[in-house]
């Protein structure tokens, strides 16, 4: 391919602009999280200012943000484990069953996939209040699992479809039951697909704001719901703790990208390749 120097320059300039746009909001949030309010939002703006960890100290120690971190950890872990267990069973069956029932299930799952989550909230309130289980971590986990299911079974099914049927048939000829074939033969082969789907379950549970804020009270809230106070923070200290909270939430995600970039990319393209 011919490469004109002008074209190359424009190309890299364009990509550099995108890189700045993509990273700037996060980078600038990190910068101001290390400042006092006066330095963070001063007029005129300061490019350099003394660094302080006061915001983080206030957030994690005074406001006990570690509780929210703990809640997030439990909710995320629970959602991922249950989602994958339930989803793998269903995704496997959907990839092997030839009847029209499977087809209908997939169509209905697709409809639920598009459902705006807030439409479920009024019923959740009524239902969970009546059963007395509204403000519990376990309820939030199961709600997240259910909301996650349509996506999970579609994705896992598309991974299972690529595993040849002969594999489970061979196992069953050798005396495995269907469940044993699934557990001993298919799942080990499926591992990359399970990890990728697990990552997206993780992101959904970790990034959820609406459900946690609507279904749990302050002591059970996950991190994103807990920092929502920063949206309308009245005091400067509170606002800056919100900034520190935003950075705190983002750090695990950055680590995740660094470790699992390949799986995330393959997961994003998986659905696409299958249409």
């Amino acid at each position, binding site marked *: 391919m011919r490469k004109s120097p002008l074209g190359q320059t424009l190309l890299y300039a364009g990509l550099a602009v995108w890189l700045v746009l993509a990273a700037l909001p996060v980078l600038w949030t990190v910068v101001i999280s290390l400042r006092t309010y006066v330095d963070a939002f001063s007029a005129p703006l300061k490019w350099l200012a003394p660094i302080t960890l006061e915001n983080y100290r206030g957030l994690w120690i005074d406001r006990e943000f570690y509780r929210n971190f703990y809640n997030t950890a439990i909710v995320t872990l629970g959602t991922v484990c249950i989602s994958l267990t339930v989803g793998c*069973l269903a995704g496997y*069956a959907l990839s092997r069953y030839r009847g029209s029932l499977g087809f209908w299930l997939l169509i209905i799952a697709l409809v639920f996939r598009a459902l705006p989550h807030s439409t*479920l909230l009024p*019923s959740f309130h009524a*239902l969970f209040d009546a059963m007395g289980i509204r403000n519990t971590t376990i309820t939030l986990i199961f709600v997240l699992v259910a909301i996650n299911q349509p996506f999970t079974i579609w994705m896992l099914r598309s991974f299972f479809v690529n595993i040849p049927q002969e594999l489970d048939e061979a196992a069953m000829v050798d005396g495995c039951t269907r469940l044993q074939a699934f557990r001993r033969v298919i799942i080990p082969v499926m591992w990359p697909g399970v990890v990728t789907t697990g990552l997206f379950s993780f992101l959904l549970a970790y*990034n959820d704001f609406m459900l946690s804020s609507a279904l749990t009270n302050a002591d059970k809230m996950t991190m994103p719901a807990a920092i929502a106070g920063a949206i309308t923070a009245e005091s400067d200290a509170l606002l800056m703790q*919100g900034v520190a909270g*935003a950075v705190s939430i983002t750090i695990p995600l950055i680590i995740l990208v660094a470790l699992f970039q390949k799986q995330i990319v393959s997961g994003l393209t998986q659905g*696409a390749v299958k249409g």
Partner: protein
Amino acid sequence: MKLRSFAGFVGPSVFLMLALLALPMLMTVVLSMRNCALEMELVTVQQTGPFGAHEVTTQRAKVDASGQAVQTCQWVGLEYYRKVLGLEKPAAGAGGTAGAAGAVPSPAGQPTEFFSALRFTLLYVAATTPFVLGGGLALALAMNRVTQRLKAVFIAASLLPFIITPVVGALAIKWLFRDNGLVPHVLGGMGIEVFWMAQAWSAQLLVILYGIWHVLPFAFIVFYAGLQGVPQDALEAATIDGATNGQKLRYVTLPHLMPLVVFVLMMHLMDAYRVFEPVMVLTQGAFTTSVQYLTYHVLLQEDNPYKASAASVLTIIGIALLLIPLLRKTWREQRQGH
């Protein structure tokens, strides 16, 4: 696989979806046509203070023997739909506001809550879609020409806006555009002064900018992966036949990417219809509102689950209409696959 074992395998998943998605959806329809209010009673309480006893008459919720508040429920038909759609003036005290406490009377001059929510939601969908598709495509084509070593860095950085917690992403944009923030400072240096969150057009623009920033990486990644599969021999043949770069893009690359463009478009339509966090964070519903935000707001701020249910049902009808083309496409593909 036999039907029996199929049912066993999908059982837990189907049960969860029935119990926590399908059942609540049906309940929403029922709730939207009902209204419950706490029964109130006037009681006179003797209060004893340091300055002697005195009687105070207050209103409080009636409680039954077990200590539960007594509620009276009634069917109100489509009343809340009319309210949400603004088909009637909210008559004072009609039907009683639900939940009694905290029910803010909807301000006059806002007769079409749902339509204004729907209008901005659709504006958001329409405004973000071309930029997401076009930007994603341009970025993918550009990345395809970058040396291998730089690609990993570019892709990692591009993923950040996509996987970041939406509330956090929206907050980051908010702090960037806030008065005395970075962007107003830089724009101010160029003589442009905008108070971003203080007027309708700029607040709406900000929500749309957030949407593009958030979703563009997804389109980019999908298109970039698709570009790796463009048949090289077709491209070479086109070069030998004297095709220009533009022609190769137009006649070889784009047709190859078309299914992916449709896929991203469908995904984006579904997700954009659900826009919530930026609306909530950037303007708190002041200059922008969306159908999801409306339900959330009515439920949690107005504390009226019945009206919120009516808004929910209308939202579901909206997404159902939007989904029809996607369902037809999937229908055909899956039928062929079987």
